[in-house]
């Protein structure tokens, strides 16, 4: 399904030290990307609670982006490794539960990768436009 006028809504949980700073760098570098992403700043990707991601999906977010530091770069040593396991588990549950796990993206973006942040958002918006709106947005019985 593809609807030209559909603008996906992406909720992004970004770690303060890498991806959030990378998003700031995209700003200071004036790198343009689609305005579909709404960022929630957390201290670490390891503190992204799967329940937040589930809530966003059930509320109707078209996509959820979790951004953290590249492996080995976590400000808190190992938060991103924990996040990696947790999000992999979550995506499997989401898939098994008959929801669309492809709406959940985990990406490592460092503080110096402003361009990568913009690229990730651009790619994600493209992929979600292909998919169309999250059907749960209209569903009241969840």
């Amino acid at each position: 399904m593809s609807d030209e006028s559909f603008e996906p809504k992406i909720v992004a949980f970004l770690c303060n030290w890498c991806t959030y700073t990378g998003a700031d760098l995209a700003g200071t570098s004036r790198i343009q990307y689609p305005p579909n992403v709404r960022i929630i700043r957390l201290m670490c990707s390891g503190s992204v609670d799967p329940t937040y991601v589930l809530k966003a999906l059930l509320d109707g977010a078209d996509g959820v982006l979790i951004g953290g530091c590249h492996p080995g770069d976590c400000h808190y040593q190992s938060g991103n490794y924990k996040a990696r396991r947790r999000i992999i588990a979550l995506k499997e549950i989401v898939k098994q539960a008959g929801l669309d796990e492809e709406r959940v993206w985990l990406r490592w973006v460092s503080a110096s990768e402003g361009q990568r942040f913009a690229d990730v958002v651009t790619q994600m918006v493209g992929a979600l436009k292909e998919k169309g709106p999250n059907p749960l947005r209209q569903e009241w019985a969840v």
Partner: protein
Amino acid sequence: MMSEKSKPRIGVYVCHCGTNIAATVDVEAVAEYAQNLPGVVQARHYTYMCSDPGQTLIKEDCRALGLNRVVVASCSPRMHEPTFRAAAQEGGVNSYRTEMANIREQCSWVHHDKEAATRKAKVLVASAVAKVTHLEPLEEREAGVHPGTLVIGGGVAGLSAALDVAEAGFPAYIVEKSDRLGGHVAELGHTFPDLEPTADWLAPLIRRVEEHPAITVMLDAQVEEVAGFVGNFEVTVLQGGQAQQIDVGTIVIATGYQLFDPSRKPEFGYGRYPGVLTTWELEQRLATGDLVVAGRAPQDVAFIKCVGSRDIQLGNPYCSRVCCMVAAKQAQMVRQALPETRVTVFYIDVRAFGKRGEEFYDEAREAGVRYRRGNVSEVYRRGERLVLRVEDTFLRRTVEHETDMVVLAVGMEPRDDTGVISALLKLPRSADGFFLEAHPKLGPVDTTTNGVFLAGCCQAPKDIPDTVAQAKAAASSALIPLIRGTVPVISETAIVDAELCAGCGMCVDVCPYGAPALDPLWGVSRINAVLCKGCGACAVTCPSKAICLQQFTPEQIMAQVDVLTV
């Protein structure tokens, strides 16, 4: 349910940031929208919220309207959160009941479409309002400081930084990987822009450092591990197979650079023709006076600039900043040593900035050094001599230049072991591989790790005066916590609700800092707030949310999610 006393009374302040935000976001519309959000008592927009009048606006509203929460929609919280927290505090609002909506870096600067950007800015403000509604007041906290600074690297940057720290009355520890002090500079015979012998100023500097009672120099040593945080770093140094721990409050990184290896530019024939050498090798030849090539003094010497710098294909797009001046210096010295020898410098641009830079370049030309603009594409042998194939960018044609000695002005690169230090201290690197400063303008010596500072070429190529200036800046920043004697530690720690805790101990397993522990008597988790770094790993792991990370509680985050999915 909220009591009447803590019922939200929120002030929202939308910043124009001159035109930085206002040109792309309809700030008036955002303020108008914010005025109708639940709990908002007053919403305003103003040219520069961070300016004195802007802050005064917030403070006065806080008092006059009895606000208990503040939202500022402006730049990144990484920029001005402390500013607005302080303003709120002065207005009588607990500083932790402020929240920022990042509508500049993450909105106006990255979107062109004014309508879409304005829409997004509104949502971001609503999200901040939703979060601030649930924020609880927190107390400021402090920790003591180990008086002392670790300086990693014993080159000019490290020496200068250590000396300033020591002169201020605090111990400085220099950890140097090699067996001597002075770094690369110690191998330079003379320095620009005045052809002064290096030893004249470097030797006294090294002597002052070595003789200073407050400075400990550790040669053949390297940093093995760094634990702790600003004010309380525990550094393990390995020297001669022996590990020892040094406790310091701050760290200055002065690890320097490495020279570009010109064999990566095979077209210049380095390593193949004995007549092709680097500026570094010529420096040694000039020091000994041995300029003989192929058994005789060269009649012609050609310099090629920007070798390994300003080269996108090589992955080094940056300018190494010193090579122009090094070439000017060495060209003059060759002319002095061999007045009959023709000396030509092939350049893309001449960058003769800085104090006395342009004058020094003029002096080189007055000394008979010829400057020719052109890209050298190849060096090859013709008989006894070497030939440069040059694309002359003035004449717009390819010319050949016969010579006896080719000097490659090699640039600087991040050291191969930058990654090791980066991993030890959790420091990000910029795209060029050098350490990334906290802010290119406002925090050029700071890093994203509090208490760790950058000095010299580990941050970016620079000349000696700039290196010393940065080292002194790093030293003075490193001294701030030492002089204060305390450092603020995060208030946003994890806390346990003992009523909810079932004592499963998973928080203990996931914490990298050993902050939570099970109380042996009650079987519930307790968090040592001094050890807690506020990462939130324990809170996610706790299924009943008996542990919450303050300032990032599930209520707060889910209130944001709620608003952001509308």
